[in-house]
């Protein structure tokens, strides 16, 4: 590893009795796009605010380019934040908003004008200098907010669910634009979202957070294919979680669950005969087999169709809900049918049943 641009060491933070962050460490390489992914209340926004200096931490350190900035006020840190609801100054026009940081640094007027024009060009809003924030659409405000943060040339750009308030189509488009900007400028992005698709699309690395700690911090493909625990598996890509006992055969480990036996991949986890194990399997890997196979027996509960995928909800004998999905419409199954399902070896991976931390 070369010199990280941003390091945080073992950050903890409590609000009253509630521990929001319980020992978080992270190291960002220059030019990296790292996403903090988690549902609301997982501590991701607090972590971002601590890095920006808008919140203090109880213990731990924030190091920016080798300099400890843990106790520095926000104005002394070379990071900038894009706020969830944009936080554009309503009494200033677009040019004044974008040029705010430069005016503070007493740059000359022509210099500011040039930098503002360039920043607006970058976010594809050229010529919008004289508009007021109230005259802009949500997407345009978002772009102005990004331009305002970029014009300062921060070491790290912090983005707090910047696309959260936009509609789906605009969100997809902005995802591509943000990624383009990040590559073009080579600025390090620390991005917050609760949308796993957004995280998987844009990031170099994803930190899945829950209960104030990282459940897993890894590349998108590692998180998708080798989730460390049941939470990561179900949160990223909504995998089915099956908990049963291990059965060792010559060709590898199997999971005994709800009256069926299915092959699993152990990964790094140890497997002992008869020990309780948890496996994660994605809905698209679930196959149905004929009556006399070893698959897990279940009843079809519901069929629904959306976005080109058929979603089949199954209920096992243990009362668990299992989701299977298919391309196209499968007429052969109807609610109430008795089926057996299974999957090929390699499609179900063992995960830790417990959350980290």
């Amino acid at each position, binding site marked *: 590893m070369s010199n990280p641009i941003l390091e945080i060491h073992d950050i903890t933070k409590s609000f009253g009795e509630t521990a929001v962050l319980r020992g978080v460490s992270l190291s960002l390489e220059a030019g990296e796009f790292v996403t903090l992914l988690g549902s609301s209340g997982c501590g991701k926004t607090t972590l971002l605010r601590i890095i*920006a200096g*808008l919140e203090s931490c109880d213990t731990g350190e924030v190091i920016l380019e080798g300099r400890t900035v843990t106790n520095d006020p926000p*104005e002394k840190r070379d990071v900038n934040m894009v*706020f969830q609801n944009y*936080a554009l100054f*309503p009494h200033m026009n677009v040019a004044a908003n974008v040029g705010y*940081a430069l005016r*503070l640094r007493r740059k000359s007027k022509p210099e500011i004008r040039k930098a503002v024009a360039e920043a607006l060009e970058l976010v594809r809003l050229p010529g919008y200098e004289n508009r007021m924030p109230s005259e802009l659409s949500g997407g345009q405000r978002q772009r102005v907010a990004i331009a305002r943060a970029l014009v*300062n040339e921060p070491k790290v750009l912090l983005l707090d669910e910047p696309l959260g308030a936009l509609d789906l189509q605009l969100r997809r488009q902005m995802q591509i634009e943000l990624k383009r900007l990040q590559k073009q400028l080579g600025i390090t992005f620390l991005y917050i979202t609760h949308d796993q698709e957004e995280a998987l699309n844009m990031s170099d690395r994803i930190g899945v957070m829950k209960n104030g700690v990282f459940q897993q911090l890894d590349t998108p493909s590692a998180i998708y294919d080798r989730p460390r625990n049941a939470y990561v598996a179900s949160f990223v890509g909504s995998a089915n979680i099956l908990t049963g006992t291990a059965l060792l055969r010559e060709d590898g480990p199997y999971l005994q669950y709800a009256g069926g036996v299915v092959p699993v991949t152990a990964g790094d986890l140890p497997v002992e005969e008869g020990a309780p194990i948890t496996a994660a399997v994605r809905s698209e890997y679930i196959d149905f087999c004929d009556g006399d196979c070893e698959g897990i027996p279940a009843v079809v509960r519901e069929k629904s169709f959306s976005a080109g995928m058929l979603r089949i909800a199954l209920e096992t004998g243990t009362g668990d809900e299992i989701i299977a999905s298919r391309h196209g419409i499968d007429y052969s199954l109807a609610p109430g049918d008795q089926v057996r399902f299974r999957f090929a070896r390699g499609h179900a991976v063992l995960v830790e049943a417990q959350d980290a931390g």
Partner: protein
Amino acid sequence: MQGKRRSRGNAAILAPMYLFTVIFLIGPFVYMIVLSFLTRAETWGIVNTFTLRNYQKLLEPVYLHSFGESIRLAVYVTALVVLIGYPFGYFMAKLPPKARGGLLLVVMVPFYTSSLMRLYGWIIIFRANGLFDRLLMVLHLTDAPLKLLYTYPAVVVGMVYALLPFMMLSVYSSVEKMDWQLVEAARDMGAPPAKAFLTITLPLSLPGLMTGVTLTFVPSMGLFFVADILGGNKIVLIGNVIQEQLMKVHDWPFAAALSVILMLMMSLTVWLYRRVTGVSEMEGFV
């Protein structure tokens, strides 16, 4: 069609309000303007003869002096009210909701007491050897009583006291609506706290500040009873002149002319307020 029917329905509902406005606001106002152009009768009442005498009389030094004095006092009072009221309103808005409610009550309670009564309270404090004098002497800040009652400072204090709540409340209602994330954004962009206040909080609370200024400046030109009670007869404000002309001299047309000019000055202040803030409503009061 539908729009028309609805507007006719609205007119019926609004009729009493229009009627009220005409009878109690526009009517007296027009009467006052007409009165200001009529002649005073030799003995009692008025004669229906058109004259500009009342307005010419305004230019006499004694009355010009009163106008000048009124404006000067209003400026002092307003400046003091801004200096005390803005920080007070600002910090009140930043308090946790519970403490805020209590403080708000403390500010509001005096409104429920007669303002005259409260002014008499100041007499007790300011009179020779009163509370204020004794306090200063106990603290060895002065040796002899200052005898502040019936002096200019006493009038200023009385006015500031009477008008301060308007500033506190209008600043409070403005600051309370602030989106503090904007200040965070400014800090994040590199603004130290004072700079963030000057560039973000102050401009965004300007409507409240300007409402407070208007609600202080305009009445402070007319609060004759404060000058009467705390200033003796030494400070003659325009409000005092009007009262005197109306109640003692019985020159109603001249009192009307004075009132018209005072109204014009107040309207000018409100117009300036709208120009500065671009808002047509008074923050927190309309």
